[in-house]
């Protein structure tokens, strides 16, 4: 039976999302955010979610809408506050959302570790700062390192440019950002793409995320302008 990861709708793509899940969401600023999938999760009604994403959403839609809905009890990110992050800011000020702030390089490296079967790694980032408080440290070659744990998720929502039925992915410009490491680090990786191509159409030298890391693909070409 041919492998076919292409799913007909957003609803089916996010099927299985449940209360209490940890969900990774790709994107950096407004580039590479899987807005349709995020609204799929919002429509599912799932609550008590932990979201892992670089930012905490801006504007009124996408990640900001999810955070603003009150269904996210905890967010793990590197840079929550931006111009337009009012929905997050209000929840934070009201003590309604827990924030785990992670240095940005540590954030993606922890995802890669989870995806690559690494049990933990020593990084110099954050050594001697508040963000390393309570963490194991070690001097290695005269330099202080912090031990960081892998970061995995129940589900990853990723935005990419092109996919084929095996789930191979190509991205576009700086919208690539966290997509490839999140795809590795989640039990269920769901991807929204702008274009579906035939198997074998992608240059095998240029595939960025091979299908082994992808579970479901949904084609979204509505080109909707999101308020994010």
């Amino acid at each position, binding site marked *: 039976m041919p492998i076919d990861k292409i799913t007909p709708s957003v609803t089916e793509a996010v099927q299985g999302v449940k209360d209490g899940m940890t969900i990774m969401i790709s994107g950096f600023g407004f580039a590479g955010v899987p807005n349709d999938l995020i609204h799929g999760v919002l429509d599912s009604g799932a609550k008590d979610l932990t979201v892992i994403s670089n930012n905490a959403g801006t504007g009124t839609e996408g990640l900001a809408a999810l955070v603003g809905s009150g269904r996210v009890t905890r967010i793990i990110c590197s840079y929550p506050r931006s111009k337009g992050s009012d929905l997050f800011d209000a929840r934070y000020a009201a003590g309604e959302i827990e924030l785990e702030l992670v240095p940005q390089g540590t954030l993606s490296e922890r995802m890669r570790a989870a995806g690559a079967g690494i049990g933990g790694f020593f990084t110099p980032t954050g050594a001697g700062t508040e963000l390393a408080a309570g963490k194991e440290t070690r001097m290695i070659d005269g330099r202080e390192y912090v031990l960081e744990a892998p970061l995995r998720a129940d589900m990853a929502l990723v935005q990419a440019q092109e996919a084929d039925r095996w789930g191979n992915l190509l991205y576009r410009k700086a919208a690539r950002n966290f997509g490839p490491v999140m795809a590795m680090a989640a039990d269920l990786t769901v991807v929204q793409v702008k274009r579906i191509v035939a198997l074998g159409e992608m240059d095998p030298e240029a595939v960025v995320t091979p*299908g082994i890391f992808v579970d479901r693909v949904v084609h979204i070409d509505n080109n909707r302008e999101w308020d994010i």
Partner: protein
Amino acid sequence: MSVADLELGVTKLTRPQIARRAAELIPDGSFVNLGIGIPTLAANVMPAGKDVVLHSENGILGVGPTPPEAERDRDLINASKDYVTLLPGGSYCVHSDAFAMIRGGHLDLALLGAFEVAGNGDLANWTTGDRRFPPGVGGAMDLAVGAKAIWVLTDHTTKKGEPKIVNACKYPLTAKGVVKRIFTDLALIDLTEDGLLVREMVPGLTIDALQAVTEPKLALAEDWQELAAA
């Protein structure tokens, strides 16, 4: 018939036949690594219509069968350094990403060769400890701990007729307790919580004859079948 065949009075599977039987049982849609030795032969005997994605740890996903000699490409070899092809949908990656796939638990299955397999699933396949010859571990230890399931493909006994399925490995271990299923030239055996369960035997072989060349205690599945050469 070889001497061993004569002793057992049965026709053993050839190496490609062992590989073929394993290939038949790979679940459709699986991502699978084929180790050096008998396992790599599986790429050439994959049942038609089965959509399995083969992984090679030197950086290939979607390995296809051996090419005709005229189409060999020195930049396209598998982990056994044999010429291969790439299927549509296949891709290349850096070595560290190929092993991220392995260690990260993304492979459904790895088919590996073995010097010895113990009844508890311990695997020894990287060195005989003979100090005259350099050992070679390759990707065996990564595959053994990383793939979701490990199937071993091996001759049932050494060339001298000694069991390769043993009570405890004498050779240095590759990994502890990882083997789930063994395909040999005589039988298909599952390693279960209750011990070794024989699922298939070649025509004419008895469980007693198989037990005689196997160290750990064997049980015969109620629904056991003939291990037919394809």
